[in-house]
């Protein structure tokens, strides 16, 4: 398959501090890729560079053959950050519609109401963020990222602040939403701290080393889809989790 993201020799320094060191990777259409690595290694920086929020010091990124800046302006990226980052003065629905308002898009393919339904928030359209739980707030953030049907979903530890039960539930929800919206979202880049989460969700896991981050290893995850919770009890899953744990331990 075609690669949707192609990263060549990306390096990033903050002043003199090297953060990323010669990163090469490619993401295929329809792929779910996780980025994992020791904390503070530059995962978030890599994600922000991929999405055009910060420039790389050197190297080249192409999104379907175009420079990142062009892709950003074409609104090909949907970001979900660690915190929901909702505007407290807007209702769930109004928060979901924020990108459409900014784009001046009055005729989205899928209505924001329907997206809220997809992420399981039907009936909460007129609630304000403070009236909703952390998990519900993060669902709004996901719905918001889907409103304009971005080609690439960039997620930076989106469930990192949630408790484990909610987190597992959100993982399943994410896979379900991704499947339902697969026509439009072609790739997901998912930064996480959690090895089990990465294995459960991904087609491919990119393991980064300590800062300055290099690519330590790229693992293909050939677990069958659609993934159910039962996958987590399979030998293959447990083996993969163990294998990644070993790799990260060596650092």
């Amino acid at each position, binding site marked *: 398959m075609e690669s949707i993201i192609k990263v060549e020799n990306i390096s990033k320094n903050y002043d003199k501090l090297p953060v990323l060191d010669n990163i090469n990777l490619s993401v295929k259409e329809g792929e779910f890729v996780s980025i994992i690595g020791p904390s503070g290694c530059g995962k978030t920086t890599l994600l*922000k560079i991929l*999405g*055009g*929020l910060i420039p790389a010091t050197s190297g080249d990124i192409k999104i379907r053959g175009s420079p990142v800046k062009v892709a*950003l*302006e074409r*609104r090909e*990226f*949907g*970001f979900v*950050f660690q*915190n929901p*980052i909702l*505007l*407290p*003065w807007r209702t769930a629905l109004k928060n979901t519609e*924020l*990108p459409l*308002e*900014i*784009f001046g898009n009055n005729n989205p393919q899928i209505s924001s109401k329907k997206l809220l339904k997809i992420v399981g928030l039907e009936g909460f359209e007129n609630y*304000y*963020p*403070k009236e909703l739980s952390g998990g519900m707030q993060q669902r709004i953030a996901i719905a918001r990222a889907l409103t304009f049907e971005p080609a690439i979903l960039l997620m930076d530890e989106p469930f990192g602040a949630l408790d484990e039960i909610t987190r597992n539930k959100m993982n399943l929800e994410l896979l379900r939403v991704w499947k339902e919206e697969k026509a439009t979202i072609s790739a997901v880049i998912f930064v996480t701290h959690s090895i089990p989460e990465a294995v459960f969700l991904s087609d491919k896991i990119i393991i980064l080393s300590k800062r300055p981050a290099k690519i330590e290893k790229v693992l293909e995850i050939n677990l069958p889809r659609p993934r159910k919770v039962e996958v987590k009890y399979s030998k293959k899953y447990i083996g993969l989790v163990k294998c990644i744990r070993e790799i990260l331990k060596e650092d």
Partner: protein
Amino acid sequence: MHKGNSQRGLKEIGIPILFFVGILIVWEVIIFLLHIPEYLLPRPVQIISEITVNFNSLLGHLGITMLEAVFGYIIANIIGFVVAVIFAHSKMVERGFYPYAIALQTTPIVAMAPLLVLWFGSGLASKIAVTAIICFFPILVNTIKGLKFVDENTIDLFKSYSANKWQIFVKLRLPNSMPYIFSALKISTSLALVGAIVGEFVGASKGIGYLILTSSYHLETAIMFAAIIISAIAGVLFFKVISFIEKKVIFWQKPEEF
């Protein structure tokens, strides 16, 4: 729920009133026991009768003072807000003017009042000017703060939509600054009254400041107390009105206690 609310409301109003009555009684007793002359400290009964007898005239003076205070307040807050927006958008303008804004703030308003009366005459305009100057700084500083202190991540979110500066201003910075702006608006309510009354001290023929000054010349201390009390009540009401608007505007946040 409803019952609880009204009970709390009763406590909120009832307890201060009870204390107030208590203070008045102690006041009366002290004057009686220590034989304090009326021109130093009038009895509460005298003050109350002064207020009721001269109610219309007091209200007339208060009306003038409030007119000056509210006008100056509105002018200062509009100008202060606009200047803050300009400051927040241009580092150069901010660097150039900010020191003078601080200088204006640190100069005692009482020192400037005679000059303003000289320039604007002894009518309403000079009091409005004094009020405007004293109310200018809080709104300037707070609006700048509110426009600038926006969460980095939220800016990232807007950037990821390639939002332009105007969109970030209207959809993020402006609503974000509302709590800061209202905090300034509340502080300024009391400053506005100070400005108007100080202006009237310097040169006026009506208003609460004028009334306080003339009654002090004639040792009509009861009138002076009446004027002070009525201006205090007006100040509290002014503050309450702004607080009420604040709760309506910033519905998403618990308002800070002042």
